[in-house]
């Protein structure tokens, strides 16, 4: 397994286990490598649209579907609560973890609360809708805005 794959798995497993983004030093310690090795790999994973980093180049803002910062889209899995980057990623977290979940979010216009149960086979029937304003060709131009 190449280094970037090991690093990606370390990042994603940290998110899955703790609900939070790992610190640079935590990843370096787990992989027994230098901080600079991790920074350089982060840059490559950003270029490949695997991670989205803060401007410091070492803080993970997004490892889709996981968010490194609190958002309005919370996903409850067992006793853990994850933050998703967007409505799509809110369903992406139970899909990635292969576990039952409850998605807590709200209507983008009215603020009405959404509580959606998602099993491993999919969500309960719902009349709610998903709307994306940014065309697919431009999603990664500004992923935070998207």
């Amino acid at each position, binding site marked *: 397994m190449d280094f970037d794959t090991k690093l990606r*798995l370390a990042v994603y497993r940290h998110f899955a286990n703790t609900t939070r983004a790992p610190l640079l030093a935590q990843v370096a310690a787990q992989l027994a490598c230098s901080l600079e090795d991790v920074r350089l790999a982060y840059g490559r994973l950003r270029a490949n649209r695997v991670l989205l980093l803060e401007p410091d180049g070492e803080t993970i803002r997004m490892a889709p579907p996981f968010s490194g910062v609190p958002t309005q889209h919370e996903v409850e899995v067992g006793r853990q609560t994850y933050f998703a980057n967007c409505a799509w*990623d809110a369903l992406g977290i139970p*899909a990635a973890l292969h576990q039952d979940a409850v998605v807590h979010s709200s209507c983008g216009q009215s603020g009405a609360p959404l509580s959606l149960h998602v099993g491993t086979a999919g969500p309960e029937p719902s009349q*709610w809708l998903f*709307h994306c*304003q940014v*065309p*697919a060709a431009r999603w990664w131009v500004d992923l935070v805005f998207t």
Partner: protein
Amino acid sequence: MLFFRSEDLVKAWCQARGVPLRPLVTIAQLWELAVAWYASRLAPDARRPGPHEMRRIFARVGLHDPFWDPQTDAFC
């Protein structure tokens, strides 16, 4: 990328911002997209769908609008 309780509320959201209404996606469709994108994300061989695969996934889910084309310049 937001949830909305109804189509009318999506339209109100767009009108308030002066932006066009985009294709609406049901929760069932969104789940299919979430699975296609993320079901293998924690596996060693995981990878993001490329442009051709994205088109296939969107078409399979019933989303055929050029809005979903990852390489179109129609919206630039």
